[in-house]
């Protein structure tokens, strides 16, 4: 049997990167795998994707997926500014950016909030494990209050909820997931990459070396036992024309389905589970995050979605040709333009 290929005629293996150097079993590797699958399934052209990251275990991962895409392992907490510049330079690109809870929640908090405010279109993945791995196990700002870690004792400070921070900052696509829930991660990635605005995915991604005890809410055992998906998620591609009709063939009442239409005509179909969360309602999104934090409920799924406001490039009213591809004549005005300016500055 010939190997399976996607619409570009590429095998899944052609979307791989270099072999991972993270600890065996690291949650981050599962996310890299889902990114490979996503790009393969959607038939994305790797040369039109950039991968950008900060510093930390998570930020190493762009080397481990999409080897055919340009990557930039930048500075600690500064990935959002690098993405801003790159996405202004070339508006034809798609961007997958990887950060961690230290990278975003501590040193990069300012850039995290401001890139959302600017609405740079890219997928902002936070691989959140509550701990600093590369420096051997310090608490991060997302660690639970009262948690005990062998290296540093008890954490006495309340956690920062990065999904909540994203909603408050005005993010138009906010999701939380669990790296152990491959199916949900895949669905959310496929939705996020289509979103023409900043899409934040806060993915709990256990650190098997420093923070995987059952007592930690960022561990595999905890996640497996306690994850409560808000919905079952399905992505319906733009060519899926009968989204509404399809509802009836499923075993759901009409009221139990939310079809979120995306900018490109695709739908995020959310099938109701045990609660009534509607991600199009900002107040509900804040409530579900607040109560999850307070009551330590591990709610996952699409938390918040709204039709994105104009991207930064649109606000800047840029030409359609990517700035990085402009021809010389569009980069330098003619001599007459300089002479005109000089003339106006002369005495008479």
């Amino acid at each position, binding site marked *: 049997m010939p190997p399976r290929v996607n619409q570009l005629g590429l095998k899944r293996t052609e979307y791989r990167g270099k072999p991972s150097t993270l600890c065996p079993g690291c949650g981050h590797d599962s996310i890299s795998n889902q990114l490979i699958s996503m790009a393969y399934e959607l038939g994305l052209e790797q040369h039109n994707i950039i991968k950008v990251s900060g510093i930390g275990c998570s930020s190493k991962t762009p080397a481990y997926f999409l*080897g*055919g*895409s340009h990557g930039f392992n930048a500075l600690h907490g500064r990935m959002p500014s690098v993405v801003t*510049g790159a996405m202004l330079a070339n508006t034809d690109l798609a961007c997958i950016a990887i950060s961690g809870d230290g990278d975003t929640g501590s040193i990069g908090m300012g850039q995290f909030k401001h890139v959302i405010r600017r609405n740079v279109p890219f997928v902002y993945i936070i691989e959140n494990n509550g701990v600093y791995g590369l420096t051997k196990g310090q608490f991060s700002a997302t660690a639970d209050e009262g948690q005990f870690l062998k290296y540093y004792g008890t954490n006495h400070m309340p956690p920062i909820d990065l999904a909540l921070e994203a909603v408050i900052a005005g993010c138009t696509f906010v999701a939380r997931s669990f790296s152990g829930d491959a199916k949900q991660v895949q669905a959310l990635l496929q939705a996020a990459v289509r979103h023409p605005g900043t899409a934040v995915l806060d993915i709990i991604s256990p650190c098997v070396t420093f923070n995987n005890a059952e007592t930690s809410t960022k561990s595999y055992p905890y996640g497996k036992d306690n994850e409560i998906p808000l919905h079952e998620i399905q992505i319906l591609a733009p060519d899926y024309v009968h989204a509404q009709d399809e509802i009836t063939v499923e075993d759901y009442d009409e009221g139990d389905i939310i079809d979120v239409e995306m900018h490109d005509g695709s739908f995020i179909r959310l099938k109701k589970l045990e609660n009534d969360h509607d991600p199009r309602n900002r107040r509900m999104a804040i409530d579900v995050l607040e109560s999850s934090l307070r009551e330590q409920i591990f709610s996952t799924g699409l938390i918040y979605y709204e039709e994105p406001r104009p991207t930064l490039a649109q606000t800047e009213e840029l*030409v359609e040709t990517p700035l990085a591809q402009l021809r010389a004549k569009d980069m330098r005005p003619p001599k007459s333009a300089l002479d005109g300016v000089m003339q106006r500055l002369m005495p008479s």
Partner: protein
Amino acid sequence: MAIQTELHQTLDKRAPISNDFAFSVATKNGSGSQTSNNVLVMSLFRMGIPVNGKNLFPSNIKGLPTWYTIRASKEGYTARKEITEVVVAYNNDTAPEDVMNLPPGGVCITTDKIARIIRQRDDISYYVIPVTKLMRQATVPSAFRKLVENMTYVGAVAQLFDIPLDLIYQVLLDNFKGREKPAKMNHDVIKLAYDWTAENIVKSDPYHFERMDGTQGKIMMTGNDAGALGAVFGGVNVVAWYPITPSTSFVDGIIGFRNLRQTEAGENTIAIVQAEDELAAAGIITGAGWAGARSLTSTSGPGISLMAEFAGLAYFAEIPTVFWNITRMGPSTGLPTRTSQGDLLFTHFLGHGDSRQICLLPGNLKEAFEFGWRSFDIAESLQTPVFVISDLDLGMNNWLSDPFDYPDEAINRGKRLDENALRAFIDDHGKWGRYMDVDGDGIPYRTVPGTAHPFAAYFARGTGHDEMATYSERSDDWIENMQRLRLKMDTARAMLPQPIIDDGREADIGIITFGTNDEAIREARDWLANEGIETNYLRVLALPLAPSVSDFIDAHKSIFVIENNFDGQLTQLIRLEHPENISHVRPLALGDGLPMTPSWIYQNLIEQEG
């Protein structure tokens, strides 16, 4: 006032002095004096008189003392003068000292209120303007009354020193972008003071202006505007910045000239982002440079400190981008509104580890414009950040200049491979690696994202890497990479703008400098030559230093390195790069926050030379 009449009889016997004296206008910050001073400078410029205006202003919105010096020089000298012959003493807080600073025979123009609190000197002329009375006669809405009050000294100065009123009105119109209402409101006050002065003041000084042809075909502009215009002609695509004095007006300049680069449909080819801080501004331009755009930021010392981490990354990952450092006085917050050349070493070595940054050092408007566009060609040719080190004096003050030359070289994107070029490269060399040095000049070939070739991608990083851009902790890879970067810097020495050398005189003394000290040095050299002391002169335009600097040092018995910082930073750099036979190299380093003066250079050079 009785004293003055007696004075007149002795003072007004001097021969007239035309177009060769300087003013100091002392006011309170935020009182609207900027417009008054601009009107005076631009009027003299239009009269054809070579003129320079320097704003010595406080870090404050309203209330603190500010001085504006205007120098007219028929010989075309535009450096700041230490002593001004005329003071407009409109600030009661500083008036006593301002008057004491006048030379014998000087002129004090002041208000009736201030006249009561200053000590009378019997060797200067006083002209006292009844500002309150005049403003009562003016038909100015009360909301603007305080702001146009300073126009009274413009009127008095115009009458006393012969600046035509109709010309002032034209300048006002230009200043208010053709709007007649504000122009007329200001002009009415000027005219009131002009007429009052004509009727009531007996002139007792020799100074006056007269039309000449010293500015025909010349322009007047700030260095920040000149650099911004240069960047627009250099193809800048992405500008990211954070407001900081004295660099803010650089980005204002780009915003002002942005329309020169708009498409017919009004779309922009320049994105301008006000970032959340200088860290992000540096990140944005680094990201844009990596992705293939021409990017720029403008900042000053405190911002440069924050940008150090991205400067190191861009140096090591070899990403072209441009930083303008409009230097102000440090360390720390320092003197935010005072000029300095104190960031030379910090900027040149910006970044931890063994990093070294390309620096361009403009000394006048033409160079600010030229480096505005050329910095991008250099950055892309060398694949490294370029720092243009200007200063507050050049950046924010109005300078006289010949018009700028249109770029004489086409836009140069350096060794950048598109799909076809990459294919050809691989045919020639078997493979492509981001940091392979196939030309032996230390400069590799790069690709940018979006290049449709299966081997175009690479992984940019600040971590150790081999020539294929793969992560490596091997010592041999590290050393090889650092050696190539050093080779690249040596390649740069010959590619960068070369020093301007005037060594045609029979002289034992050589002067070396950089940046805006040029005007003061030019004048000081003329003074020295008049005393029979000949000097040769070299002005450095770029770092790392060109080989000709060493030759110049070796060719003179005595070398003075004149710089406007406290520690003699260019001297230190010369000692580092040219360690042999340099006992004759001495710094003349000032660093007092003000633009350098010819008299300081003249005195100190003579003193040192003995």
